[in-house]
C-alpha cells in the first residue's frame, strides 16, 4: 500500500513544521526582549501581556547607571580581543609548521591536538584554578587570557592546518623564486590567502570567550572584572534586582553575538563546524 501525499499537501506540512519550530525558537527571545521593555509592575500582570502596554527604557537605563553593566561588556571585549591576539599568534605558527614543514611523528601530534580540543572544561577547571593561584595570576585578566588561549589553541591549530593545507605549494614556491625565504612566503602569501579561514577562527574564538561562564566564574574574584555571563549570574543573587532589568542585561549581552551571527553567518558557522570535523 502506498500512501499518496500530493505535492501541495507535502509542502503544507513542511511549512507547518517549520513555523512551529520557528515559534519555539524565537518566542523565548521575544519574551526576554519585551520583558526588558516593560515597567516592572506590568511584568507582574497575570495573565501576562504579550505586547507591552507601556514601553519604557528604564530597565536599560538602570542596568547601566546603577549596575554598571557596560563595564562588564567592555571587560569581556578586552579579554576576547586579548585571547584572539594571543591564541592566534600561537596557533597560526603551530598550524603552519604542521602543514608546510617536515615534523616527526606528525600524525601522533595531530591526534593529541584533536583529542585535547575535545577535553571538556569541567575536567580541567580545578587544575587550571590551582595553576593561576600558584602563578599569582588568579583574579587577573591576563590569567584569564592565558587560560582561554590554552583552551582554544588545539581547535584553532586543527582548523588552521586544514586551511593552510588547501593553499597550493605552487604559490609558496613562486614567492620563494621572487626572493622570499620560506617563512617570509608564509607571511606574504599563505596568510593573506587564508583570510576567509582566519575570519572564521577569529569569530570562533570571540564567541567562545563571550559565551563562556565556567572559566571566568572560577578564575576571577573581583566584581569589576566579571565577564558578562558571570555578571548576569551575579545579578540573580543580588538583592533588589528586578527581572525586567535582568532581561535588559540579557538582551544587551546577547546583542553583539546576534549581530555577528546575522552579518557573518557563513563564517560563523564554518568556524564552528570545521573545528569539529574534517571531511
Amino acid at each position, binding site marked *: 500500500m502506498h500512501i499518496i501525499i500530493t505535492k501541495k499537501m507535502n509542502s503544507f506540512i513542511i511549512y507547518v513544521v517549520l513555523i512551529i519550530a520557528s515559534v519555539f525558537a524565537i518566542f523565548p527571545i521575544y519574551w526576554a526582549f519585551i520583558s526588558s521593555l516593560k515597567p516592572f509592575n506590568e511584568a507582574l500582570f497575570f495573565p501576562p501581556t504579550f505586547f507591552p502596554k507601556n514601553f519604557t527604557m528604564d530597565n536599560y537605563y538602570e542596568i547601566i547607571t546603577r549596575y554598571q553593566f557596560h563595564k562588564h561588556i567592555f571587560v569581556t571585549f578586552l579579554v576576547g580581543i586579548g585571547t584572539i591576539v594571543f591564541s592566534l599568534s600561537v596557533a597560526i605558527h603551530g598550524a603552519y609548521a604542521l602543514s608546510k614543514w617536515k615534523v616527526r611523528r*606528525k600524525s601522533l601530534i595531530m591526534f593529541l591536538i*584533536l583529542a585535547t580540543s575535545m*577535553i571538556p572544561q569541567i575536567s580541567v577547571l580545578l*587544575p587550571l584554578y590551582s*595553576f593561576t593561584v600558584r602563578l599569582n595570576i588568579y583574579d587577573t585578566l591576563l590569567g584569564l587570557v592565558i587560560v582561554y588561549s590554552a583552551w582554544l589553541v588545539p581547535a584553532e591549530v586543527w582548523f588552521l592546518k586544514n586551511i593552510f593545507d588547501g593553499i597550493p605549494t605552487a604559490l609558496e614556491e613562486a614567492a620563494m623564486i621572487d626572493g622570499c625565504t620560506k617563512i617570509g612566503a608564509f607571511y606574504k602569501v599563505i596568510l593573506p590567502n587564508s583570510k576567509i579561514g582566519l575570519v572564521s577562527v577569529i569569530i570562533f574564538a570571540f*564567541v567562545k570567550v563571550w559565551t563562556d*561562564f*565556567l572559566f571566568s566564574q572560577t578564575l576571577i574574584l573581583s566584581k569589576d572584572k566579571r565577564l558578562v555571563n558571570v555578571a548576569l549570574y551575579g545579578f540573580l543573587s543580588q538583592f533588589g534586582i528586578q527581572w525586567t532589568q535582568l532581561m535588559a542585561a540579557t538582551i544587551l549581552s546577547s546583542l553583539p553575538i546576534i549581530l555577528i551571527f546575522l552579518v557573518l553567518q557563513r563564517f560563523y558557522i564554518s568556524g564552528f*563546524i570545521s573545528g569539529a570535523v574534517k571531511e
Partner: protein
Amino acid sequence: MKGYNYNRLLPYVLLLPTFILVALVAAYPIIVSLIYSLSKMRYLKFERFVGLENYVRIMGDQGFWQSLSVSLKYYGLSIAIVIPLGLLLATLLSSKVKFLTLFRTIIFLPWVLSQTITALIWGWLLNENFGPILWIFSKFGNDNISFLSDVNNALPLVVLANVWNSCPFAIIFLMSAIQSIPEELNEAAKIDGANTFQKFNKITLPLIMPTLSVVFIQLTLLYFNMVTLIFVMTGGGPLGSTSTLSLYTFQHAFQFWNTSYAAALTFLLLVINLLFAGLYVRLFRVQY
C-alpha cells in the same frame, strides 16, 4: 650547514608555544588532578598522601551514584530528542521552500546564546507566578503547577531549555551533510518511484551516517559535561534532582572546597572523556 640545521629545527620552534599551551590544558590537568586526588589537601595545600582513599570514598558515596544516574537521564533524554528533531529539521531546511533563509536564521538563533542566557530566559519563561507558560497551563485549568521547584518537573524542563539551545548545532551539521548529497541520486530514486520516506531511508540516511556519528559524539561530550546551564537554572536542585556528575564535581571543587575529593572526581571525568575522545578519533579514522 647552518641553513640545514636551521630548517630542521624551525618547525619545532614554531610549534613550541602550541605544545606549551596544549600541555597546559591536557598534561597538566591530568597530573595535577591525579596528585591531588591521591593526597589530603587543605584548600590548595598539600598535607599528606592518602593513596586511593578518595576513590574508595567515591565508590561508597550515595551522591556520586545519584548524580551519575541524573547525568545519564539528562544525557539520554536530551539526545533522544535532539537527534530525531535535528534530522527532521535539517531535512526540511534543505528542501526547496520559500523564506528558507528566514526560517534558517530564526531556527539557528538560540544556538548563538550562551548557556547562562538560555538558563535565565527559560527561568523567566517558567516563572511560577506570572510566566507565559503558567498562563498556557492555566488556560487548561491547571494554574497550581510548579515547574523548576518540582522534583519531577525540573529535569525535563532543563532538558527542554537544553534542546532549545543545542538542537541548531545538530541541524547545522546535518544540513551540510544533506546538502552535499548529489541531486542526481534523488532524481534517480524519484524516477524509480520512491516516495519521500523511502528516499530518506535509502539515500539520505546512509550517506549522512558519518556526520550523524560525529554529531552524536559531539553532543554526548557536550551533554555529559554540561555545568553552566544546569548550575544557573536550578543549581542542581530541587533535592539534587538535576545534579549531574559534572555539576556535582563543580560544587565539590568550588562550593564545598573539597579539593582532593573534587580532584578525584575530576580525574575520573577526565579519563572517561579522553577515552571517549580517543575512541572517536580512532573509530572514525579522522584524517590528518
